[in-house]
């Protein structure tokens, strides 16, 4: 049963049903039904304190759910964490390592600590992982001398060490420069095309937009949207036209212009080509024309509220707040 589920291409890699976590009075995660499928590059989005990290921690068996059911790679968590997580590489809330040891010593210890890390292949796997994340020449320096970006790369190397079937990455590009972000994005796409499912959380929407195929958006502990990125960003049924003859265009289109911002017009129509022909035929010069698509930012801002790190006077008296903020490490 498990084997067939895992081998069929559209099978679920991470599913949660009614996943709920309450920390005292605070409802951090509220009835979340996640569905991450094999082959996805799944982006898990939401404001700070919306419950992303708590959800990831429950999936990794670190935090016990108050209610609900989790399955990772066909195995229930935390009941069968050992079987479920052996094929998972994770980066949660920033990388961590023993500061007085080198990158290789750190990876070696972590590899030896759990299942699936064979001694004979260890050296080769460590070298390969360091190479993948761009730390091949790192040498014997202790990790405490590393920059933030190097630590992040080391954390990624730890997640990649056993070529996992599922990568769970919390803010994987944190601390990296634009070049590094690009490298990590290319690496994740490459791994994904080789069959690894990538489940990442981020609040960098541009990054998710460029990387992910499916997204789930959480707000105040609830999953408010889940679906293919392309669907969420479907055309809005309007066409954006940029023209120096905006006044003439408005007159010509007679009420179909729904919004105007200087020389940018938003016209209600599904057919940009026909609109273009009409405008040009009417003597309106067109600089740019195309269907209006919502950016991921539009979608996210539409369905979420301010993050829990924003403590304004308007929030006083709010009966529900997000999870308590933890200091980054």
């Amino acid at each position, binding site marked *: 049963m498990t084997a067939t589920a895992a081998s069929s291409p559209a099978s679920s890699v991470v599913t949660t049903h009614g996943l709920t976590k309450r920390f005292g009075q605070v409802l951090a995660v509220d009835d979340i039904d996640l569905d991450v499928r094999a082959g996805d590059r799944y982006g898990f989005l939401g404001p700070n304190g919306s419950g992303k990290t708590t959800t990831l921690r429950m999936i*990794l068996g*670190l935090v016990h759910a108050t209610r609900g059911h989790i399955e990772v790679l066909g195995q229930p968590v935390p009941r069968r964490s050992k079987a479920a997580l052996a094929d998972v590489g994770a980066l949660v809330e920033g990388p961590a390592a023993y500061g007085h040891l080198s990158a290789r010593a750190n990876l070696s210890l972590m590899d030896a600590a*759990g299942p699936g890390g064979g001694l004979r292949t260890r050296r080769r796997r460590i070298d390969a992982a360091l190479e993948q994340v761009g730390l091949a020449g790192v040498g014997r320096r202790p990790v405490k001398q590393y920059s933030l970006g190097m630590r992040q790369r080391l954390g990624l190397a730890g997640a990649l060490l056993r070529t996992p079937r599922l990568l769970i990455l919390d803010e994987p590009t944190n601390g990296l420069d634009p070049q590094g972000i690009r490298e990590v994005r290319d690496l994740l796409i490459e791994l994904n095309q080789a069959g690894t499912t990538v489940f990442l959380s981020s609040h960098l929407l541009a990054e998710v937009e460029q990387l992910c195929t499916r997204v789930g958006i959480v707000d105040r502990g609830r999953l408010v949207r889940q679906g293919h990125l392309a669907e969420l960003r479907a055309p809005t049924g309007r066409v954006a036209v940029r023209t120096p003859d905006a006044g003439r265009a408005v007159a010509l289109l007679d009420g179909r212009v729904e919004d105007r911002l200087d020389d940018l017009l938003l016209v209600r129509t599904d057919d940009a080509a026909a609109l273009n022909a009409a405008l040009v035929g009417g003597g309106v010069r067109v600089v740019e024309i195309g269907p209006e698509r919502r950016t991921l930012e539009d979608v996210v801002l539409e369905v979420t509220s301010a993050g829990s790190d924003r403590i304004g006077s308007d929030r006083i008296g709010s009966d529900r707040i997000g999870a308590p903020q933890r200091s980054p490490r």
Partner: protein
Amino acid sequence: MIGVELIKLLRRPRTWVSVLLLVALPTIVAVFLALTEIGPRPGEGPALLSAVLSNGQLFPAAALAIVLPLFLPVAVAVVAGDSIAGEASAGTLRYLLARPVGRTRLVVAKLVAVIAFILIAVVAVALSAYVVGTNLFGSEPLTSVSGRSVNTADATRRTVYAVLYIGWSMLGVAAVALFLSTLTDSSLGAALGALSVLVTSQVLVALDAAAAVRPYLPTRYWLAFVDFFRDPILWRDIERGIALQAVYVGVLLAMTWANFTTKDITS
């Protein structure tokens, strides 16, 4: 996993610095004694020290008595207090558990590493003190505290007993620190908590008004190891000490396990 924890312990500079400090204190005491030949009078100062001047082979036991009240428990509390809380504050705990390492396995591995540290520390003190003692004070036949002489094999056997007994007493300290280490993410907090338990216990042991609770205090029978050097060995307090520590260790380890295996790891 146990191997990993032992490697971590042995590759940590702090382990060896604390062992070195533990060895240094009795050595300094020995040097002063040998230079001045002014020993504490019987019944004063650390146990057994008064007998050392004439009797170098007794120095391992005297050295253990020197580090036992404070130095050794501090070192043990620091190591044990750091074992879970240190991983938590470094952030490595979440990676170990997500690796995945079972929580029970992790606690057991940590406990084994702490026991290894205790043994390394106690044996290092005893061995170095044997070398220092026999060189500075000569090695006449050991005279027991009761006045009869004993041969070297017998003296070694008694010293090994003392080492094991003190190690067992230190396991009680370690169990307190390990439990606190699962309660907090601050290794310093866990170590201080364990030490405050010890200091309280030591104060109450010396307080006549607290005589009613004295037999149940964790440090009550620590110094009973001196009885190994009586002739014949006086087992009464030693047995009580072993039993009392067993209760403390058992209860605290059970609490450690219960707390850690059900805890939300939010560090």
